[in-house]
């Protein structure tokens, strides 16, 4: 086998490979001999078909098989010989068989893995959010929990913010009716922002059974658009006004949240612990985002088209699945590959950089790390041991935790080489926007 490699562009290579025919012909003959023992043709008992007939019937097919095998094998050999790393699939063109004397030749065009050079990361600044969970944060969380379990009781006084009211309303624009509630009325809690703020503030200050007529002017950029820029007059009847009553933070409350012995202190601890976990997760996500971005920004490489295309395919697939799950009829949706180009480019780049890093620095997650990751997954289930067992029952299931663990290793590695600055953040800032 002989192979010559030409460089077409940075990543593209053209390889001309020639393979001697002699051994291939022998292979064909051998296969036909083997076939003759089992082949069936009308007029002959199985295995009694003369060789000539078998060759006549199956020769072309066998030859094709042998050829494509040979092409594949010789291509792999050639790739190995020339120390190429092929990305994606080669495009193989056969030269006509007759022209070659004693040899078959073909031209394979393919892309190679790019050289990935990760630049010096030591100038990269990465912010590590630092957050101590204080008493106040715990209290805030508890408050939210309390409010979620608030009960409401009717009051005689005028409605105010935080009250739950039930109203019947008739809305009209230019005395044309646009909305009317049915017999059940409309339940809402004043000040929760479920409605337009100006509308909600008008609802405060009325007693049960009273009636109020008012107008609300919606701004131009209001959503939904039917109301944008319109002045709507409302005729509201108050059917009920109820005041929120927060449960006591006590043993009963603890029990209702699943702390069985009703120990308030224990519950407080549990809340703190879960907050810590959550914060930890967010911090890690932030670090990962920054690390990956830093890698993307500081690496130079050309991404093989084959990779980008594969990535585009994957993205389209994912989008389609997503749409299908939401019940969108796919026949109406036309997903253009161009829509995913940029994202795919980025993903493919990142993938290449990461795999390069992992190989170069031995960042592959080891068994302990994978195990730790699985344990983390399992923690949130009721019977963690079963979950762990499930993961280990099939090697494939470990792919995900292994990938995550490897990613963590990469982040660690980046953090080690980059400048990491601690930055104090507020609880709400960290938790709010992810």
């Amino acid at each position, binding site marked *: 086998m002989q192979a010559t490699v030409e460089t077409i562009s940075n990543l593209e290579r053209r390889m001309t490979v020639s393979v001697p025919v002699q051994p291939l012909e022998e292979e064909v003959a051998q296969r036909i001999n083997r076939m003759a023992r089992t082949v069936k043709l009308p*007029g002959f*008992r199985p295995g009694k078909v003369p060789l000539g*007939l078998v060759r006549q019937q199956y020769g072309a097919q066998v030859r094709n098989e042998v050829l494509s095998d040979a092409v594949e094998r010789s291509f792999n050999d050639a790739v190995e010989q020339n120390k190429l790393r092929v990305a994606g699939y080669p495009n193989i063109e056969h030269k006509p068989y007759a022209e070659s004397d004693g040899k078959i030749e073909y031209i394979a065009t393919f892309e190679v893995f790019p050289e990935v050079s990760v630049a010096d990361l030591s100038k990269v600044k990465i912010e590590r959010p630092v957050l101590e969970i204080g008493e106040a944060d715990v209290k805030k969380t508890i408050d939210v929990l309390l409010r979620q379990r608030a009960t409401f009781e009717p009051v005689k006084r005028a409605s105010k913010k935080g009250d739950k009211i039930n109203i019947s309303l008739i809305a009209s624009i230019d005395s044309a009716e646009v909305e009317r509630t049915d017999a059940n009325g409309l339940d809402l809690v004043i000040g929760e922002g479920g409605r337009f703020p100006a509308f909600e503030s008008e609802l405060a200050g009325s007693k049960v059974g009273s009636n109020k007529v008012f107008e609300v002017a919606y701004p131009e950029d209001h959503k939904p658009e039917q109301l944008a820029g319109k002045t709507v007059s409302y005729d509201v009847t108050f059917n009920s006004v109820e005041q929120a009553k927060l449960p006591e933070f006590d043993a009963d409350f603890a029990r209702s949240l699943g702390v069985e012995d009703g120990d308030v202190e224990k519950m407080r601890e549990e809340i703190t612990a879960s907050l810590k976990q959550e914060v930890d997760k967010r911090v890690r996500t932030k670090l990962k985002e920054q690390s990956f971005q830093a890698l993307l920004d500081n690496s130079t490489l050309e991404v093989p088209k084959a990779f980008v295309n594969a990535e585009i395919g994957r993205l389209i697939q994912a989008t389609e699945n997503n749409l299908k799950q939401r019940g969108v009829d796919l026949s109406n949706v036309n997903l253009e590959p161009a829509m995913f180009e940029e994202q795919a480019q980025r993903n493919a780049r990142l993938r290449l950089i990461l795999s390069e890093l992992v190989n170069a620095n031995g960042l592959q997650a080891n068994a302990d790390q994978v195990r730790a990751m699985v344990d983390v997954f399992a923690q949130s289930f009721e019977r963690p041991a079963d979950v762990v067992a499930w993961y280990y029952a099939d090697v494939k299931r470990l792919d995900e935790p292994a990938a995550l663990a490897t990613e963590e290793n990469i982040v660690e590695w980046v953090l080690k080489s980059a400048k990491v600055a601690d930055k104090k953040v507020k609880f709400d800032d960290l938790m709010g926007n992810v």
Partner: protein
Amino acid sequence: MSALTTQERLLQVIVAPQITEKATRVADKHQQIAFKVRTDATKPEIKAAVELVFKVEVDAVTVVNVGGKIKRAGRNFGRRKDWKKAYVSLKPGQEINFAAGE
């Protein structure tokens, strides 16, 4: 005979080559080739037809009438058509290559 010209008739005489274990054995042993032919074909006709179609020289023809098999499906009996088989001996040095004709 029919209104067909001789040549058209000859082209219809040979129905199919008979490719079976027995036929290949005979071909090897006696340099004979077996054909399915029309039941009303005569030896001279077959000779002429083979010479016309395969451009070879025929030495001799022997024929055999093969009775159609009786086949039954449940209660119903059916009879397959009778047919005629011809063994054609070629003159020495002659050969028919079916692969090329197919």
